[in-house]
């Protein structure tokens, strides 16, 4: 058994009982002491380990090419690896592919980022009660992703709370034909509640409009329209229509001052062919009652204004033509009759001829 001298105490020991510390050989007590004196990080290892490769455990003895790295010795094959373990080629390629995928995913996600951004802005605005501003953002999201439950419900909510039932209907119908994943979701229930309330109000409004066209049902029509406006106050058009239906009630009661007051108020609020025509109608009634030519003149002026406003709108012009004929009769005959009566007297005759 070969023996080696300890660099610490100078005694000789068998190789297998000795240790290596920073290239010096020590017996165990000297190795412990020297390690403590060397400070942090100094560790000793069995001297016999110097004969085997620290990585592959092959016997290296004193063969050439052996490399000492730190406390360990390595064979010629392992030493370069341990010194500088390189990334394998496939890994470098994979990382390059990963980077490309990262860029691709960002590029691919751009349209979704836009849709998502619009949705989050819309959601933020909805949560702050700014429904009118939120709606265009949410509609933009639905343009890219019509199947999004969240965007459809938010858009419908924003639309319904601004009185825009048509946009709400488009958002909901465009979403899987109105089907949603979870009907128990509070968001769905909320929109469903709003939808039922809004469509119920619109049904009443439609019924009111039918009554409005019939002589003698003006009061019923106004009452129904008021109910609709009350049920769905988010739609100001209903309240406006309810007020305009009060003109019919005043007409039936021969209260032409009230008729004129309401018509003028509506005309001031919204200058449209219909409101102008209503003022013309009320003024014609006043002329028929008083014979004051000023009323007649103003009535004709308002009818002209109505025509100007309706210019280019075929439907409005058609309605105005129908009204103008009756208004002319009222001004010339100073007789106040409703549409049905006028139709019965003059138009059915024309038709039969």
């Amino acid at each position, binding site marked *: 058994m070969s023996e080696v001298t300890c660099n610490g105490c100078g005694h000789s020991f068998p190789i297998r009982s000795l240790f290596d510390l920073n290239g010096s050989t020590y017996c165990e007590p000297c190795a412990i002491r020297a390690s403590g004196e060397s400070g942090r990080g100094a560790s000793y290892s069995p001297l016999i380990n110097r004969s085997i490769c620290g990585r592959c455990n092959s016997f290296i003895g004193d063969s050439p090419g052996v490399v000492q790295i*730190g406390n360990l010795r390595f064979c010629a094959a392992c030493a370069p690896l341990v*010194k500088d*373990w390189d990334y394998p080629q496939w890994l470098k390629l*994979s990382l390059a592919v990963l980077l490309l995928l990262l860029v691709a*995913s960002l590029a691919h*996600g751009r349209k979704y980022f836009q849709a*998502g951004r619009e949705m989050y*802005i819309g959601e933020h605005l909805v949560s702050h009660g700014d429904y009118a501003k939120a709606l265009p953002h949410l509609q933009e999201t639905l343009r*890219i992703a019509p199947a*999004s439950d969240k965007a459809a419900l938010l858009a419908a909510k924003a639309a319904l709370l601004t009185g825009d039932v048509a946009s709400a209907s488009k958002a909901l119908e465009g979403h899987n034909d109105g089907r949603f994943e979870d009907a128990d979701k509070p968001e769905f229930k909320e929109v469903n509640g709003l939808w039922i309330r809004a469509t119920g109000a619109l049904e009443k409004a439609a019924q009111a409009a039918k009554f409005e066209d019939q002589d003698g049902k003006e009061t019923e029509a106004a009452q129904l329209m008021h109910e609709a406006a009350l049920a769905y106050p988010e739609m100001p058009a209903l309240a406006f229509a309810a007020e305009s239906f009060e003109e019919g009630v005043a007409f039936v009661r021969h209260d032409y001052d009230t008729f004129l007051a309401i018509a003028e108020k509506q005309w001031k609020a919204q200058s449209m062919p219909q409101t102008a025509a209503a003022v013309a109608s009320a003024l014609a009634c006043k002329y028929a009652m008083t014979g004051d030519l000023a009323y007649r003149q103003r009535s004709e002026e308002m009818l002209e204004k109505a025509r100007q406003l309706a210019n280019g709108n075929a439907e409005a012009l058609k309605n105005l033509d129908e009204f103008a004929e009756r208004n002319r009769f009222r001004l010339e005959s100073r007789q106040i009759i409703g549409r049905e009566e006028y139709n019965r007297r003059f138009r059915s005759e024309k038709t039969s001829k």
Partner: protein
Amino acid sequence: MFFIPGPVIAALTFPGVIIHEAGHLFFCRLFKLQVFDVCFFRFGNPAGYVIHQEIHDFRAQFFVSMGPFFANTLLCAIFCTTAFLPVWELKVFDPLAYFFYWLGLSIGMHAFPSTTDLSHLWAQAPGLAKKGNVLAIVSLPVAALLVVLNYGRVIWADLGYGLAVGVFAPIAIFRTLAIIGI
């Protein structure tokens, strides 16, 4: 709770394993540590490993142990963010988006450092934290949490972590961007 063998999970989420080990190797090279062996992926337990020299420097220990955790988390957040909107919010069936989401989740699932990595960190951190080492102070709660989560792997804590990063990170990013008006 259903049981799926580890190698099956590792195979289904192999990109995460490779990136985790590549992260270890990157930091070993950065701190000029001796590396004895590297396995980027295998059907076994562990699914990958990097065997390196004993580390005495805490900074090196911290980055070698925790580096892959941060790298995997970051990559998970990025990939999942790009695919989050079509997959979760917009409900658009886009196979490419689902692929990116799988990639992100796979990477996020393998973010946790191994118990061996954490034990090395855990052994050094308390003493250094007492001496005011900032990195040690920071690493203590993180390491403690990760030790707990590591044990939670049996109840899919790693998948839960991936999902949490892949869902909450994009939500936080998009909402913040929307609110600040970008």
